């Protein structure tokens, strides 16, 4: 299973902050995972679209589209940060 986390505006738009996902065979990278989630349609299609300014982390480290994703990973999606 992959643990998926969503934060802030994204969490509200998707209506969930966390889910467990059985790793699909086609999904080996962060980019592929994002495309997989976009195929859910609706808010998912909109929020996960390639043009959206979305950040992600794999196992709590900032990640890019080609970052590998494996079973047991924690993957988080979130908007650009605005702390401080």
């Amino acid at each position, binding site marked *: 299973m992959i643990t998926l986390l969503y934060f802030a505006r994204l969490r509200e738009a998707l209506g969930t902050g966390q889910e467990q996902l059985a790793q699909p065979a086609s999904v080996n990278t962060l980019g592929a995972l994002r495309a997989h989630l976009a195929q859910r349609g609706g808010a998912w299609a909109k929020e996960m679209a390639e043009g959206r300014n979305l950040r992600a982390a794999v196992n709590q480290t900032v990640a890019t589209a080609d970052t590998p994703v494996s079973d047991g990973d924690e993957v988080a999606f979130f908007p650009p*940060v605005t702390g401080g």
Partner: protein
Amino acid sequence: MKVRVQQEDFDVGTEIAAMRRSRPKIGAIASFVGVVRDVNDGDSVATMTLEHYPGMTEKSIAAIIDEARGRWEVLDALVIHRVGTLKPTDQIVLVIVASAHRGDAFAACEFIMDYLKTRAPFWKKEITPQGGRWVDARVTDDAAAERWQQPVSKVK
């Protein structure tokens, strides 16, 4: 070097006193406090809610402090960032850097704030008379963080 993410308020004087205690090599302590303003982007702000990514937030800040330690002489550093709901005039964030010399303390403190703004996973939602809205990332914050990429002159 300490990182705390908490709902509770903090007291700068208490934290600086703890840092100074029995540390006679410290000659300079620079600190920064971020405060909730009552106006942002032209709208009045009633409250603000801060969300973070438990675990990654603390690790990100620790990495920012480590990077500062690699660039300047840092004897000690502390970052406290509040989460939850805050109102105007409330304290949001505290950065303290202790060094032998003031140039290092100032530079490392400002560096940590600039990087924290653009790298640490926190998100702000403001409640204004028009309703709630997530604060957008600022281009000026990216610019502030990016200027540290250039060589930095060291003044002690």
